[in-house]
């Protein structure tokens, strides 16, 4: 078990929801798409032009690829969110951890976005806006149906608990 933010014991632990695996798949694919050809290029070009020893340059992007492969999973695992009675919790980050709490009454706008790559993988992100721009509450890589459910639920809860500036 990783050390870090200790779990609070005084209240009941909220029901954390993890992200579906689609986001991990997408990020890994992007990683391979970028670093795979780079590995080949750094291996082949110096290897063919300057001698086989120079192909060792390829080790660098390859190591990055392998390291990134593992890190992406850790990062993906660290993302989770919980809908509590009065606020939404978002927790993320492996080395630099961040937890955000947004009371439903403070939400001004809930946005569902989905880029072309995300759509290809059937993913959507939910972004919450409050009056404070510093509120950085985004949940990436959700199932579109879940994203819409979340949006509708947050809107509904926000309406019920709405408060001003």
């Amino acid at each position, binding site marked *: 078990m990783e050390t870090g933010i200790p779990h609070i014991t005084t209240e009941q632990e909220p029901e954390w929801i993890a992200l579906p695996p689609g986001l991990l798949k997408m990020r890994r694919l992007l990683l391979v798409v970028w670093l795979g050809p780079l590995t080949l290029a750094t291996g082949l070009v110096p290897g063919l032009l300057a001698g086989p020893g120079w192909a060792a340059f390829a080790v660098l992007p390859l190591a990055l690829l392998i390291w990134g492969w593992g890190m992406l999973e850790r990062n993906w695992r660290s993302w989770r969110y919980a809908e509590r009675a009065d*606020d939404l919790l978002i927790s993320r980050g492996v080395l*630099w951890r*961040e937890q955000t709490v947004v*009371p439903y009454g403070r939400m*001004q706008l809930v*946005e569902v976005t989905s880029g072309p790559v995300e759509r290809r993988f059937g993913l959507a992100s939910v*972004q919450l806006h409050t009056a404070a721009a*510093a509120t950085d509450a985004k949940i990436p890589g959700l199932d579109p149906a879940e994203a819409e459910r979340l949006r509708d639920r947050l809107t509904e809860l926000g*309406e019920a608990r709405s408060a001003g*500036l």
Partner: protein
Amino acid sequence: MTGPEARENVGESAGLGVHEGPGQGGHEGAGHGGHEGAGHGGHEGAGHGEHEGAGHGEHEGAVREGSGQSVRKGAGQSVREEVREGRPVIERRLHPVTPLRRAWAPLAVLIGWAVHDPDQAQRQLSRLTTTTLLIALAVLLPAAALYGFLSWWFTHFAVTDTELRVRTGLLFRRTAHIRLERIQAIDVTQPLLARVAGVAKLKLDVIGTDEKDELAYLGAEEARALRAELLARAAGFAPETAHEVGEAPARELLRVPPRVLAVSLVLTGATWGWLVVVPVVIPLLWIATHSLWTVLAVGVPLLGAAGASTVGRFVTEYDWTVGESPDGLRIDHGLLDREHETVPPGRVQTIRIVEPWLWRRRGWVRVELDVAGSSNSLLVPVAPRELAEAVIGRVLPGVRVPAASELAGAPRRARWCVPVWWRGYGLVVTEAVFAARHGLLRRSLALVPHAKVQSVRLSQGPWERARGVANVHVDNGANRSVTARLRDAEEAVALLRSQAERSRTGRRDARPDRWMT
């Protein structure tokens, strides 16, 4: 017809603050250009924009959506439509000196060009004959006058029961409807020349309004009357009487004597910094380059900055007066340009008490405040601590400024994360505010009322985790965050949860947006 109308409806359903009359259909298509906050319908977010219930003062992300308080629409809505609302809306024009404000613009362009490129300007000037000069004048002056006149002629404003409407623009017409209950502050500003002419600018601070939405210029008396009327309407006085309510009586809380202000500026680190930097940099530069132009190019901005941070501050903060009225806080200041700001009750998001090192012996503090959408962030430039705390007690009712001894410092192990300065961090959460302090020499204590907290965040880097500490950030509605740094990790998690809870419940006893209802 269908095009603009359809867009209009999208806008409506997205919760824009527009109150259209019942007869929606009758927009004139003409000139209904692509000006209605582009990208409205494009958001998938159902969003909170959707409920625009009267009285709950959210501002729906005006920045993103271009909606919310100030709604811009293309032209095409004429007075006729407003009349259809039942009550005729009286449209007014700005003060007739307004055209002069723009008349100097072509001149400024010429001067700017001459300064930017002096050689070229001289050559061009020597080539000019009297005739060409006269012709140029004969063309330029009427053109400038015509532009000034037309922009004045096409600017109208009107006060309705719930909104201030500003209609402006010569070619690109725009209409801003500013919801009165969303007012965060009203500024009446009188630049020096405007004081001579007896006019003033009036600006409503609402999230999302910009420079164009200020009313410049109005007659000085008219500006005061309009401010009183807007505040009365925003406060929730009956529409019929709002016009006659008049200015709310103000009671002076604090006035900063010029001598104290001057001494405080002398005791500011920045003043001494400039005194050291300017006499060192300019001779050094001269020795290094022996080029007059380089010295001038560096020296003039340097002197300008030095002047702005010392003399400029004195001129702006001169005769700083803080008053209290049923309409909220009044801040008046300025030696040459006079500014009068009114902040209605319950609009202050954060208060910061800043205590520079050199002021500590005299017990002076500077008090800053955050109001959403307002450009001013100063409440008291300098005052003795007790007086400043008394003012804070009036600005944030029920809030007591916690004493330094009440603040809990960072744990000792935090010194590995932030050496030396860890001693400056402190935090206390009272029943009314979240108070966090930072700084060793220049101490700054920020107070955020629980009701103003928009979200709470906890962050922890790897190094901090190894030491078992974490930071708690509290975000307010004026786009500022207050951070309690390097708290014990267990405490920080508990704080995160309990602060979210307090933020939610703190709202219950907040005053309504229409503060007189």
